[in-house]
Protein backbone atom coordinates (compact mmCIF):
# COMPACT_ATOMS: atom_id res chain seq x y z
CA UNK A 1 0.00 0.00 0.00
CA UNK A 2 1.41 3.37 -0.94
CA UNK A 3 1.96 5.96 1.74
CA UNK A 4 -0.92 8.18 0.72
CA UNK A 5 -3.35 5.40 1.38
CA UNK A 6 -2.28 5.07 5.06
CA UNK A 7 -5.22 7.26 6.00
CA UNK A 8 -7.49 4.43 4.93
CA UNK A 9 -6.65 2.55 8.12
CA UNK A 10 -8.62 5.08 10.15
CA UNK A 11 -11.49 5.34 7.70
CA UNK A 12 -12.17 1.70 7.05
CA UNK A 13 -12.67 -1.41 9.06
CA UNK A 14 -11.99 -5.04 8.25
CA UNK A 15 -9.36 -4.27 5.61
CA UNK A 16 -7.82 -7.43 4.33
CA UNK A 17 -5.22 -8.39 1.77
CA UNK A 18 -6.63 -10.44 -1.07
CA UNK A 19 -4.93 -13.00 -3.28
CA UNK A 20 -4.54 -10.95 -6.46
CA UNK A 21 -3.55 -13.97 -8.53
CA UNK A 22 -6.82 -15.67 -7.71
CA UNK A 23 -9.33 -12.88 -7.25
CA UNK A 24 -7.97 -9.97 -9.27
CA UNK A 25 -8.29 -7.78 -6.17
CA UNK A 26 -5.47 -6.52 -3.98
CA UNK A 27 -7.34 -5.37 -0.91
CA UNK A 28 -10.85 -5.31 0.41
CA UNK A 29 -12.09 -2.66 2.82
CA UNK A 30 -15.33 -2.01 4.55
CA UNK A 31 -16.28 1.61 5.06
CA UNK A 32 -19.20 3.17 6.85
CA UNK A 33 -21.66 5.47 5.09
CA UNK A 34 -20.17 8.52 6.83
CA UNK A 35 -16.67 7.73 5.67
CA UNK A 36 -17.32 6.68 2.10
CA UNK A 37 -16.62 10.12 0.62
CA UNK A 38 -13.41 10.45 2.62
CA UNK A 39 -12.33 7.02 1.44
CA UNK A 40 -13.12 7.99 -2.14
CA UNK A 41 -11.21 11.24 -1.78
CA UNK A 42 -8.20 9.43 -0.37
CA UNK A 43 -8.05 7.18 -3.39
CA UNK A 44 -8.72 9.92 -5.93
CA UNK A 45 -6.09 12.18 -4.40
CA UNK A 46 -3.57 9.40 -4.86
CA UNK A 47 -4.38 9.32 -8.59
CA UNK A 48 -6.55 6.24 -8.40
CA UNK A 49 -9.65 6.10 -10.56
CA UNK A 50 -13.10 4.89 -9.67
CA UNK A 51 -13.08 1.83 -11.85
CA UNK A 52 -16.46 0.43 -11.05
CA UNK A 53 -19.41 1.03 -8.79
CA UNK A 54 -22.11 -1.50 -8.30
CA UNK A 55 -24.32 -2.92 -5.62
CA UNK A 56 -25.29 -6.24 -4.12
CA UNK A 57 -28.69 -7.00 -2.74
CA UNK A 58 -27.95 -8.80 0.55
CA UNK A 59 -31.17 -7.80 2.30
CA UNK A 60 -32.30 -11.36 2.79
CA UNK A 61 -29.16 -12.79 4.39
CA UNK A 62 -27.42 -9.84 5.99
CA UNK A 63 -30.11 -7.15 6.03
CA UNK A 64 -27.94 -4.76 4.02
CA UNK A 65 -27.70 -3.26 0.57
CA UNK A 66 -23.99 -3.36 -0.20
CA UNK A 67 -22.35 -0.79 -2.47
CA UNK A 68 -19.16 -2.10 -4.06
CA UNK A 69 -16.61 0.41 -5.27
CA UNK A 70 -13.39 -0.61 -6.94
CA UNK A 71 -10.53 1.82 -7.16
CA UNK A 72 -7.54 1.12 -9.32
CA UNK A 73 -4.33 2.85 -10.21
CA UNK A 74 -3.59 3.32 -13.89
CA UNK A 75 0.18 3.41 -13.31
CA UNK A 76 0.62 0.06 -11.56
CA UNK A 77 -2.33 -2.18 -10.98
CA UNK A 78 -3.53 -1.93 -7.37
CA UNK A 79 -7.19 -2.73 -7.11
CA UNK A 80 -9.08 -1.97 -3.92
CA UNK A 81 -12.60 -3.13 -3.33
CA UNK A 82 -14.57 -1.00 -0.89
CA UNK A 83 -17.78 -2.31 0.62
CA UNK A 84 -20.28 0.17 1.97
CA UNK A 85 -23.25 -1.41 3.70
CA UNK A 86 -26.58 0.36 3.89
CA UNK A 87 -28.68 -1.21 6.60
CA UNK A 88 -32.17 -2.32 5.73
CA UNK A 89 -34.07 -5.55 5.45
CA UNK A 90 -36.51 -6.80 2.85
CA UNK A 91 -39.22 -4.59 4.26
CA UNK A 92 -37.34 -1.33 3.98
CA UNK A 93 -37.63 0.61 0.76
CA UNK A 94 -35.43 3.59 1.40
CA UNK A 95 -31.69 3.24 0.89
CA UNK A 96 -29.54 6.33 0.89
CA UNK A 97 -25.88 6.98 0.34
CA UNK A 98 -23.90 10.16 -0.27
CA UNK A 99 -22.98 10.82 -3.87
CA UNK A 100 -19.43 10.62 -5.09
CA UNK A 101 -20.27 12.39 -8.35
CA UNK A 102 -18.86 15.67 -7.05
CA UNK A 103 -15.48 14.02 -6.52
CA UNK A 104 -15.21 12.08 -9.75
CA UNK A 105 -17.31 12.38 -12.87
CA UNK A 106 -17.30 8.65 -13.41
CA UNK A 107 -19.55 8.19 -10.39
CA UNK A 108 -22.32 10.18 -12.05
CA UNK A 109 -23.71 7.58 -14.42
CA UNK A 110 -22.71 4.60 -12.33
CA UNK A 111 -24.69 5.95 -9.39
CA UNK A 112 -27.64 6.53 -11.66
CA UNK A 113 -27.41 2.92 -12.75
CA UNK A 114 -27.28 1.67 -9.17
CA UNK A 115 -30.19 3.97 -8.36
CA UNK A 116 -32.43 2.53 -11.04
CA UNK A 117 -31.35 -1.08 -10.67
CA UNK A 118 -31.30 -1.28 -6.86
CA UNK A 119 -33.23 1.73 -5.67
CA UNK A 120 -30.37 3.30 -3.75
CA UNK A 121 -30.79 7.06 -3.59
CA UNK A 122 -27.60 9.06 -3.76
CA UNK A 123 -28.08 12.26 -1.83
CA UNK A 124 -26.58 15.34 -3.43
CA UNK A 125 -26.56 13.87 -6.93
CA UNK A 126 -27.73 16.60 -9.28
CA UNK A 127 -29.41 14.53 -11.97
CA UNK A 128 -30.46 11.31 -10.32
CA UNK A 129 -32.80 10.01 -13.00
CA UNK A 130 -33.30 6.76 -14.83
CA UNK A 131 -30.39 5.95 -17.10
CA UNK A 132 -31.04 2.68 -18.93
CA UNK A 133 -34.64 1.97 -18.03
CA UNK A 134 -37.65 3.94 -19.23
CA UNK A 135 -38.27 7.19 -17.35
CA UNK A 136 -41.50 5.87 -15.86
CA UNK A 137 -40.08 2.56 -14.60
CA UNK A 138 -41.15 2.00 -10.99
CA UNK A 139 -39.27 -1.21 -10.28
CA UNK A 140 -35.73 -2.12 -9.34
CA UNK A 141 -34.86 -5.09 -11.51
CA UNK A 142 -31.58 -6.19 -9.94
CA UNK A 143 -33.03 -6.54 -6.46
CA UNK A 144 -33.33 -10.19 -5.59
CA UNK A 145 -37.02 -9.93 -4.78
CA UNK A 146 -37.71 -8.69 -8.31
CA UNK A 147 -37.61 -12.36 -9.14
CA UNK A 148 -36.10 -14.32 -11.93
CA UNK A 149 -36.73 -13.30 -15.50
CA UNK A 150 -38.82 -16.41 -16.13
CA UNK A 151 -41.08 -15.41 -13.27
CA UNK A 152 -41.47 -11.93 -14.62
CA UNK A 153 -42.63 -13.33 -17.95
CA UNK A 154 -45.59 -15.10 -16.42
Amino acid at each position, binding site marked *: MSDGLQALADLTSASEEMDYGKT*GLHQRHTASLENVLKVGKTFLDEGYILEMLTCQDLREKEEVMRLCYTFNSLDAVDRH*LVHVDIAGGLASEQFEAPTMSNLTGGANWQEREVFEMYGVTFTGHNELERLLLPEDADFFPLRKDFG*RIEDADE
Partner: protein
Amino acid sequence: MSSDSQASEGEVYSLNMGPQHPSMHGVLRLLLDLRGEEVIRAKPVIGYSHRAHEKMAENRNTLQFLPNTSRVDYLSGMIYNLGYCQAIEKLLGIDVPERAIYIRVIVNELNRIASHLLWFGTFLLDLGGITPFLYSFDDREEILDILDQVTGSRLTYCYGRFGGVTWDVDETFLTRATAFLARIRERLHMYKQLVTDNVILRERCTGVGVVSEALAKSYGVTGPSLRASGVAYDVRKAEPYGGYDRFDFEVPVLHEGDTMARFHIRIREIEESCKIIEQAIEAIPEGEILPKKMPKRFKLPEGEYYFAVESARGHFGMYIVGDGSDIPVKLKLRTPSFSNLSAMPETLAGTMLADTIAIVGSIDVVMPEIDR
Protein backbone atom coordinates in the same frame (compact mmCIF):
# COMPACT_ATOMS: atom_id res chain seq x y z
CA MET B 1 -39.69 26.90 -34.08
CA SER B 2 -41.69 29.49 -32.23
CA SER B 3 -42.89 28.07 -28.97
CA ASP B 4 -42.93 30.34 -25.93
CA SER B 5 -40.36 28.41 -23.95
CA GLN B 6 -37.81 28.79 -26.71
CA ALA B 7 -38.55 32.46 -27.10
CA SER B 8 -37.97 33.06 -23.39
CA GLU B 9 -34.57 31.35 -23.53
CA GLY B 10 -33.47 33.77 -26.18
CA GLU B 11 -31.21 32.37 -28.81
CA VAL B 12 -30.83 28.91 -27.28
CA TYR B 13 -32.85 26.11 -28.79
CA SER B 14 -32.71 22.40 -28.33
CA LEU B 15 -32.13 19.78 -30.97
CA ASN B 16 -32.94 16.14 -30.52
CA MET B 17 -30.43 13.91 -32.27
CA GLY B 18 -31.26 10.27 -32.44
CA PRO B 19 -31.98 7.54 -31.57
CA GLN B 20 -32.78 7.39 -35.29
CA HIS B 21 -30.17 9.57 -36.92
CA PRO B 22 -27.68 8.81 -39.68
CA SER B 23 -24.60 9.38 -37.56
CA MET B 24 -25.66 8.33 -34.09
CA HIS B 25 -23.98 4.98 -33.81
CA GLY B 26 -26.57 2.45 -32.94
CA VAL B 27 -29.26 4.03 -30.85
CA LEU B 28 -27.52 6.86 -29.05
CA ARG B 29 -29.70 9.88 -28.50
CA LEU B 30 -28.20 13.28 -27.83
CA LEU B 31 -30.22 16.17 -26.52
CA LEU B 32 -28.36 19.27 -27.60
CA ASP B 33 -28.89 22.83 -26.52
CA LEU B 34 -27.61 24.98 -29.34
CA ARG B 35 -26.88 28.63 -29.84
CA GLY B 36 -26.59 28.86 -33.59
CA GLU B 37 -24.19 26.06 -34.38
CA GLU B 38 -22.53 26.07 -30.98
CA VAL B 39 -23.38 23.34 -28.51
CA ILE B 40 -24.15 24.79 -25.07
CA ARG B 41 -25.10 21.54 -23.42
CA ALA B 42 -25.18 17.96 -24.54
CA LYS B 43 -27.05 15.24 -22.75
CA PRO B 44 -26.75 11.65 -23.91
CA VAL B 45 -29.88 9.58 -23.45
CA ILE B 46 -29.13 5.89 -23.44
CA GLY B 47 -30.82 2.61 -22.70
CA TYR B 48 -32.55 1.94 -26.01
CA SER B 49 -30.85 -1.41 -26.37
CA HIS B 50 -30.85 -2.48 -22.74
CA ARG B 51 -31.19 -6.26 -22.64
CA ALA B 52 -30.56 -6.87 -18.93
CA HIS B 53 -27.47 -9.02 -19.40
CA GLU B 54 -26.57 -8.60 -15.74
CA LYS B 55 -29.98 -9.85 -14.68
CA MET B 56 -29.70 -12.75 -17.08
CA ALA B 57 -26.35 -13.67 -15.55
CA GLU B 58 -28.04 -14.09 -12.17
CA ASN B 59 -30.66 -16.31 -13.73
CA ARG B 60 -28.57 -18.90 -15.46
CA ASN B 61 -25.46 -20.89 -14.76
CA THR B 62 -22.02 -19.78 -15.84
CA LEU B 63 -21.97 -21.93 -18.96
CA GLN B 64 -25.40 -20.79 -20.09
CA PHE B 65 -24.27 -17.19 -19.89
CA LEU B 66 -21.39 -17.80 -22.30
CA PRO B 67 -23.30 -16.94 -25.50
CA ASN B 68 -24.52 -13.70 -23.91
CA THR B 69 -21.07 -12.24 -23.63
CA SER B 70 -20.41 -11.64 -27.30
CA ARG B 71 -23.79 -9.92 -27.59
CA VAL B 72 -22.72 -7.31 -25.07
CA ASP B 73 -20.39 -5.72 -27.60
CA TYR B 74 -21.08 -7.13 -31.01
CA LEU B 75 -18.08 -5.45 -32.60
CA SER B 76 -15.50 -7.11 -30.40
CA GLY B 77 -17.58 -10.10 -29.39
CA MET B 78 -14.60 -12.43 -29.47
CA ILE B 79 -12.74 -10.39 -26.88
CA TYR B 80 -15.76 -10.38 -24.56
CA ASN B 81 -16.47 -14.05 -25.11
CA LEU B 82 -12.92 -15.15 -24.44
CA GLY B 83 -12.58 -12.63 -21.64
CA TYR B 84 -15.48 -14.21 -19.83
CA CYS B 85 -13.95 -17.67 -20.33
CA GLN B 86 -10.66 -16.41 -18.94
CA ALA B 87 -12.41 -14.98 -15.90
CA ILE B 88 -14.17 -18.24 -15.12
CA GLU B 89 -10.97 -20.22 -15.72
CA LYS B 90 -9.14 -18.03 -13.26
CA LEU B 91 -11.84 -18.51 -10.65
CA LEU B 92 -11.90 -22.27 -11.05
CA GLY B 93 -8.16 -22.68 -11.56
CA ILE B 94 -8.48 -24.31 -14.98
CA ASP B 95 -5.25 -24.46 -16.97
CA VAL B 96 -5.56 -23.59 -20.63
CA PRO B 97 -3.49 -25.65 -23.11
CA GLU B 98 -0.71 -23.80 -24.89
CA ARG B 99 -2.22 -24.09 -28.34
CA ALA B 100 -5.52 -22.66 -27.14
CA ILE B 101 -3.72 -19.66 -25.65
CA TYR B 102 -2.15 -18.82 -28.99
CA ILE B 103 -5.36 -19.38 -30.92
CA ARG B 104 -7.15 -17.08 -28.51
CA VAL B 105 -4.59 -14.34 -28.94
CA ILE B 106 -4.79 -14.57 -32.73
CA VAL B 107 -8.59 -14.43 -32.91
CA ASN B 108 -8.71 -11.73 -30.23
CA GLU B 109 -6.37 -9.47 -32.13
CA LEU B 110 -8.07 -10.17 -35.45
CA ASN B 111 -11.29 -9.14 -33.79
CA ARG B 112 -9.67 -6.00 -32.44
CA ILE B 113 -8.46 -5.06 -35.91
CA ALA B 114 -11.94 -5.70 -37.31
CA SER B 115 -13.44 -3.46 -34.67
CA HIS B 116 -10.94 -0.68 -35.33
CA LEU B 117 -11.52 -0.97 -39.07
CA LEU B 118 -15.23 -0.58 -38.59
CA TRP B 119 -14.57 2.45 -36.43
CA PHE B 120 -12.26 3.88 -39.09
CA GLY B 121 -14.96 3.60 -41.74
CA THR B 122 -17.83 4.94 -39.69
CA PHE B 123 -15.80 7.76 -38.22
CA LEU B 124 -14.88 9.01 -41.68
CA LEU B 125 -18.47 8.58 -42.72
CA ASP B 126 -19.35 10.93 -39.88
CA LEU B 127 -16.89 13.42 -41.30
CA GLY B 128 -18.47 13.10 -44.74
CA GLY B 129 -15.85 10.88 -46.35
CA ILE B 130 -17.87 8.01 -47.75
CA THR B 131 -15.28 6.11 -49.73
CA PRO B 132 -12.93 4.98 -46.89
CA PHE B 133 -15.94 3.28 -45.30
CA LEU B 134 -16.18 0.81 -48.17
CA TYR B 135 -12.46 0.15 -48.21
CA SER B 136 -12.27 -0.56 -44.50
CA PHE B 137 -15.34 -2.78 -44.71
CA ASP B 138 -13.67 -4.67 -47.50
CA ASP B 139 -10.73 -5.32 -45.17
CA ARG B 140 -13.01 -6.17 -42.29
CA GLU B 141 -14.91 -8.59 -44.47
CA GLU B 142 -11.70 -10.53 -44.92
CA ILE B 143 -11.31 -10.83 -41.13
CA LEU B 144 -14.92 -11.89 -40.74
CA ASP B 145 -14.36 -14.57 -43.37
CA ILE B 146 -11.26 -15.81 -41.59
CA LEU B 147 -13.03 -15.93 -38.24
CA ASP B 148 -16.12 -17.42 -39.83
CA GLN B 149 -13.99 -20.25 -41.12
CA VAL B 150 -12.88 -21.24 -37.64
CA THR B 151 -15.79 -20.16 -35.43
CA GLY B 152 -18.78 -20.59 -37.71
CA SER B 153 -20.13 -17.13 -37.01
CA ARG B 154 -19.34 -13.67 -38.27
CA LEU B 155 -20.29 -11.29 -35.50
CA THR B 156 -21.51 -12.77 -32.25
CA TYR B 157 -18.94 -15.47 -31.73
CA CYS B 158 -19.26 -18.15 -29.13
CA TYR B 159 -15.85 -19.62 -29.82
CA GLY B 160 -14.52 -19.81 -26.29
CA ARG B 161 -15.01 -22.73 -23.96
CA PHE B 162 -13.98 -22.82 -20.33
CA GLY B 163 -10.48 -24.21 -20.64
CA GLY B 164 -9.87 -23.53 -24.30
CA VAL B 165 -11.64 -23.01 -27.59
CA THR B 166 -14.34 -24.91 -29.45
CA TRP B 167 -12.57 -25.93 -32.61
CA ASP B 168 -8.96 -26.23 -33.58
CA VAL B 169 -7.58 -24.03 -36.32
CA ASP B 170 -5.99 -25.51 -39.40
CA GLU B 171 -3.15 -24.50 -41.72
CA THR B 172 -5.54 -22.58 -44.01
CA PHE B 173 -6.56 -20.35 -41.16
CA LEU B 174 -2.96 -19.47 -40.35
CA THR B 175 -2.10 -18.91 -44.01
CA ARG B 176 -5.10 -16.66 -44.50
CA ALA B 177 -4.30 -14.73 -41.35
CA THR B 178 -0.70 -14.21 -42.53
CA ALA B 179 -1.94 -13.11 -45.94
CA PHE B 180 -4.32 -10.70 -44.28
CA LEU B 181 -1.49 -9.11 -42.31
CA ALA B 182 0.36 -8.36 -45.53
CA ARG B 183 -2.79 -6.96 -47.04
CA ILE B 184 -3.74 -4.72 -44.12
CA ARG B 185 -0.23 -3.27 -43.93
CA GLU B 186 -0.45 -2.28 -47.56
CA ARG B 187 -3.87 -0.84 -46.96
CA LEU B 188 -2.71 1.11 -43.90
CA HIS B 189 -0.07 2.72 -46.08
CA MET B 190 -2.78 3.74 -48.53
CA TYR B 191 -5.04 5.00 -45.74
CA LYS B 192 -2.22 7.14 -44.48
CA GLN B 193 -1.70 8.75 -47.85
CA LEU B 194 -5.35 9.16 -48.72
CA VAL B 195 -6.96 9.79 -45.36
CA THR B 196 -4.58 10.58 -42.52
CA ASP B 197 -2.57 13.08 -44.54
CA ASN B 198 -5.66 14.74 -45.96
CA VAL B 199 -5.68 18.41 -45.04
CA ILE B 200 -9.44 18.55 -44.56
CA LEU B 201 -9.37 15.63 -42.14
CA ARG B 202 -6.58 17.25 -40.17
CA GLU B 203 -8.45 20.54 -40.06
CA ARG B 204 -11.56 18.79 -38.83
CA CYS B 205 -9.81 16.75 -36.14
CA THR B 206 -6.85 18.66 -34.77
CA GLY B 207 -7.61 20.39 -31.50
CA VAL B 208 -11.22 19.27 -31.58
CA GLY B 209 -12.80 17.62 -28.54
CA VAL B 210 -9.80 17.68 -26.25
CA VAL B 211 -10.16 15.23 -23.36
CA SER B 212 -7.53 16.18 -20.81
CA GLU B 213 -5.76 13.55 -18.77
CA ALA B 214 -7.53 14.72 -15.61
CA LEU B 215 -10.94 14.59 -17.25
CA ALA B 216 -10.28 11.16 -18.67
CA LYS B 217 -9.20 9.82 -15.29
CA SER B 218 -12.12 11.41 -13.51
CA TYR B 219 -14.63 9.68 -15.75
CA GLY B 220 -12.76 6.40 -15.95
CA VAL B 221 -12.19 6.75 -19.69
CA THR B 222 -10.10 3.81 -20.90
CA GLY B 223 -8.82 2.27 -24.09
CA PRO B 224 -7.59 4.22 -27.11
CA SER B 225 -9.41 7.34 -25.89
CA LEU B 226 -7.40 7.30 -22.66
CA ARG B 227 -4.13 6.56 -24.43
CA ALA B 228 -4.75 9.54 -26.70
CA SER B 229 -4.89 11.66 -23.54
CA GLY B 230 -1.44 10.66 -22.42
CA VAL B 231 -1.95 7.69 -20.10
CA ALA B 232 -0.17 4.48 -21.12
CA TYR B 233 -2.80 2.19 -19.66
CA ASP B 234 -3.58 -1.03 -21.46
CA VAL B 235 -4.93 -4.00 -19.53
CA ARG B 236 -2.85 -6.29 -21.73
CA LYS B 237 0.26 -4.66 -20.25
CA ALA B 238 -0.98 -3.61 -16.82
CA GLU B 239 -2.50 -6.94 -15.83
CA PRO B 240 -1.34 -9.43 -18.46
CA TYR B 241 -3.92 -12.11 -19.08
CA GLY B 242 -4.27 -14.91 -21.58
CA GLY B 243 -0.56 -15.01 -22.38
CA TYR B 244 -0.22 -11.44 -23.61
CA ASP B 245 2.99 -11.03 -21.62
CA ARG B 246 4.74 -13.37 -24.07
CA PHE B 247 4.38 -11.01 -26.97
CA ASP B 248 6.39 -8.00 -27.86
CA PHE B 249 4.15 -5.05 -28.60
CA GLU B 250 3.95 -1.40 -27.72
CA VAL B 251 1.19 0.65 -26.18
CA PRO B 252 0.92 3.73 -28.37
CA VAL B 253 0.45 6.94 -26.38
CA LEU B 254 -0.22 10.49 -27.51
CA HIS B 255 -0.68 13.52 -25.31
CA GLU B 256 -2.90 15.85 -27.32
CA GLY B 257 -6.15 14.22 -26.26
CA ASP B 258 -7.96 15.52 -29.34
CA THR B 259 -9.87 13.73 -32.05
CA MET B 260 -6.78 13.49 -34.24
CA ALA B 261 -4.84 11.80 -31.43
CA ARG B 262 -7.59 9.23 -30.97
CA PHE B 263 -7.50 8.65 -34.71
CA HIS B 264 -3.73 8.07 -34.72
CA ILE B 265 -3.85 5.79 -31.67
CA ARG B 266 -6.33 3.42 -33.27
CA ILE B 267 -4.40 3.25 -36.53
CA ARG B 268 -1.23 2.47 -34.61
CA GLU B 269 -3.05 -0.13 -32.54
CA ILE B 270 -3.96 -1.96 -35.72
CA GLU B 271 -0.24 -2.12 -36.48
CA GLU B 272 0.55 -3.38 -32.97
CA SER B 273 -2.16 -6.04 -33.24
CA CYS B 274 -0.57 -7.14 -36.51
CA LYS B 275 2.72 -7.56 -34.67
CA ILE B 276 1.09 -9.70 -32.00
CA ILE B 277 -0.68 -11.91 -34.54
CA GLU B 278 2.54 -12.34 -36.46
CA GLN B 279 4.41 -13.51 -33.38
CA ALA B 280 1.55 -15.79 -32.34
CA ILE B 281 1.33 -17.45 -35.74
CA GLU B 282 5.05 -18.03 -35.67
CA ALA B 283 5.09 -19.54 -32.19
CA ILE B 284 1.84 -21.49 -32.14
CA PRO B 285 2.54 -25.02 -30.86
CA GLU B 286 0.78 -28.23 -31.75
CA GLY B 287 -1.36 -29.90 -29.13
CA GLU B 288 -4.73 -30.02 -27.44
CA ILE B 289 -7.19 -27.15 -27.45
CA LEU B 290 -9.08 -28.18 -24.32
CA PRO B 291 -7.77 -29.58 -21.03
CA LYS B 292 -8.11 -33.33 -20.58
CA LYS B 293 -9.83 -33.13 -17.21
CA MET B 294 -12.65 -30.69 -16.79
CA PRO B 295 -15.20 -30.26 -14.00
CA LYS B 296 -18.72 -31.32 -14.91
CA ARG B 297 -20.30 -28.22 -13.48
CA PHE B 298 -18.57 -24.89 -13.18
CA LYS B 299 -19.33 -24.07 -9.57
CA LEU B 300 -18.12 -20.62 -8.57
CA PRO B 301 -16.22 -20.66 -5.29
CA GLU B 302 -17.53 -18.37 -2.62
CA GLY B 303 -16.09 -14.88 -2.72
CA GLU B 304 -15.64 -11.84 -4.92
CA TYR B 305 -13.59 -11.67 -8.05
CA TYR B 306 -12.63 -9.01 -10.53
CA PHE B 307 -11.21 -9.79 -13.91
CA ALA B 308 -10.40 -7.33 -16.68
CA VAL B 309 -9.51 -7.60 -20.33
CA GLU B 310 -8.68 -4.97 -22.92
CA SER B 311 -11.48 -4.79 -25.43
CA ALA B 312 -11.22 -2.73 -28.60
CA ARG B 313 -12.69 0.19 -26.67
CA GLY B 314 -10.92 -0.18 -23.36
CA HIS B 315 -11.09 -1.80 -19.96
CA PHE B 316 -13.81 -4.45 -19.85
CA GLY B 317 -14.14 -5.62 -16.28
CA MET B 318 -16.18 -8.44 -14.80
CA TYR B 319 -17.01 -8.34 -11.11
CA ILE B 320 -18.26 -11.76 -10.10
CA VAL B 321 -19.68 -12.80 -6.75
CA GLY B 322 -19.98 -16.52 -6.21
CA ASP B 323 -21.69 -18.50 -3.46
CA GLY B 324 -20.59 -22.05 -4.21
CA SER B 325 -23.28 -22.75 -6.79
CA ASP B 326 -22.83 -22.51 -10.54
CA ILE B 327 -25.09 -19.47 -10.78
CA PRO B 328 -23.37 -16.20 -9.94
CA VAL B 329 -24.92 -14.12 -7.19
CA LYS B 330 -23.82 -11.03 -9.01
CA LEU B 331 -22.10 -10.43 -12.32
CA LYS B 332 -21.33 -6.82 -13.06
CA LEU B 333 -20.09 -5.97 -16.52
CA ARG B 334 -17.96 -2.86 -16.40
CA THR B 335 -17.95 -1.81 -20.05
CA PRO B 336 -15.55 0.76 -21.45
CA SER B 337 -17.92 2.68 -23.72
CA PHE B 338 -20.19 3.40 -20.77
CA SER B 339 -17.44 5.33 -19.01
CA ASN B 340 -16.12 6.83 -22.24
CA LEU B 341 -19.51 8.20 -23.18
CA SER B 342 -20.16 9.53 -19.69
CA ALA B 343 -17.30 11.98 -20.23
CA MET B 344 -18.98 13.39 -23.32
CA PRO B 345 -21.30 16.02 -21.80
CA GLU B 346 -18.25 17.79 -20.45
CA THR B 347 -16.26 17.41 -23.67
CA LEU B 348 -19.01 18.44 -26.06
CA ALA B 349 -20.02 21.67 -24.35
CA GLY B 350 -18.73 24.62 -26.35
CA THR B 351 -18.01 22.77 -29.56
CA MET B 352 -19.65 23.17 -32.95
CA LEU B 353 -22.49 20.93 -34.05
CA ALA B 354 -20.30 19.30 -36.69
CA ASP B 355 -17.59 18.69 -34.08
CA THR B 356 -20.10 16.90 -31.87
CA ILE B 357 -20.50 14.26 -34.53
CA ALA B 358 -16.74 13.99 -34.99
CA ILE B 359 -16.04 13.70 -31.26
CA VAL B 360 -18.73 11.14 -30.53
CA GLY B 361 -17.47 9.22 -33.54
CA SER B 362 -13.88 9.41 -32.37
CA ILE B 363 -14.50 7.83 -28.96
CA ASP B 364 -15.99 4.83 -30.74
CA VAL B 365 -19.12 4.05 -28.79
CA VAL B 366 -21.02 0.82 -29.21
CA MET B 367 -24.46 1.28 -27.79
CA PRO B 368 -25.34 -2.33 -26.86
CA GLU B 369 -22.21 -2.40 -24.78
CA ILE B 370 -23.26 0.75 -22.93
CA ASP B 371 -26.84 -0.39 -22.40
CA ARG B 372 -25.93 -4.04 -21.77
